[in-house]
């Protein structure tokens, strides 16, 4: 029997994806297009937040949306109805968007004529956390009816995002949801996280979210990120 040898590798499992994601960020930075990756559970309000964000920022920035869905076009139809350019990625059973998928989606957009791309990731809190999409910033949206224990149950995604939106705060009196507790639970995992409690339905709290985004997009375009 031949002797057993050890081959040292020490290579990141998703290094190919990571490399491609870096390439995408470089391209976005050359073109001065800010891409936001929006992640959250089904029903947390990802599409509603996108629609609201468009209505606030469409006069300031040229916006496009990349919609990832396992197998439907419902969300992209809503965005397209606002007259916003939309690219649909059907992940075909895949539970998250990877860099190869977002690269393909970006190829079909006229980057030179855009300032801001919102990528709506597939709805769940587990898989999108493990894969870099090439976005400049990452946001998680969590909604009040989901409960305030989500950072405890799905910690990884909270360690990786730049901001956390708490949607449906108009539900607060009907739910056992402690805003301060969520803030603390997320902060302990990620001290840099920005926190935006809001309601897409009543528009309460939206200004802070829009101000943050506006600031991020404009400093990125000035090359300060």
């Amino acid at each position, binding site marked *: 029997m031949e002797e057993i*040898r050890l*081959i040292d*590798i020490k290579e990141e499992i998703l290094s190919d994806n990571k490399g491609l994601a870096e390439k995408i960020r470089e391209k976005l930075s050359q073109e001065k297009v800010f891409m936001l990756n929006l992640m959250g559970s089904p029903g947390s309000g990802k599409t509603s937040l996108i629609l609201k964000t468009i209505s606030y920022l469409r006069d300031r920035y040229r916006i496009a949306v990349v919609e990832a869905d396992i197998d439907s076009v419902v969300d992209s139809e809503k965005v397209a109805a606002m007259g916003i350019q939309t690219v649909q990625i059907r992940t075909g059973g*895949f539970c998250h968007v*990877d860099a190869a998928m977002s690269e393909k989606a970006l190829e079909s957009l006229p980057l030179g004529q855009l300032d801001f791309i919102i990528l709506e990731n597939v709805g769940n809190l587990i*898989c999108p956390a*493990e894969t870099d999409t090439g976005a400049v910033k990452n946001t998680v949206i969590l909604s009040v009816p989901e409960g305030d224990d989500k950072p*405890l149950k799905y910690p*990884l995604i909270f360690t990786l995002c730049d901001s956390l939106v708490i949607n449906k705060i108009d539900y607060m009196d009907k739910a056992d949801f402690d805003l301060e507790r969520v803030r603390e639970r997320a902060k302990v995992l990620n*001290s840099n996280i920005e926190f935006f409690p809001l309601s897409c339905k009543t528009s309460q709290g939206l200004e802070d979210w829009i101000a943050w985004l506006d600031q991020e997009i404009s400093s990125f375009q000035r090359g300060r990120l």
Partner: protein
Amino acid sequence: MHELPITKSIYQMVLKHAKRGNAERVISVNLEIGALSDLQDEWLQRYFDYLSRGTIADGAKLIIDRVPVAFQCNHCQQSFEVYSLLKDDLSCTQCGSREVTLVSGREYQVKNLEVQ
């Protein structure tokens, strides 16, 4: 849930290095995966078996080392491991501060291969 694409990435890396090292057969693959990852060991192995069928990695065993979640205190610099985040009592084991920084638990690496 998303083990297939990740296993594919592992499989491709294993084959590349095994061929480069002129291996005839891969016996085991040592992985280092942070405890924050939700990857299921059983599914990684099943998908690996499926992908590697008929190749030199056919039958290789995935040995997964789960790296514990660890934090460092921003105040007293104490490092400490956390075994469950569900308990909601995450604070520095030395000074009690809740201002801490995650230092491990997100690892995602192929460490080495045992080959013949």
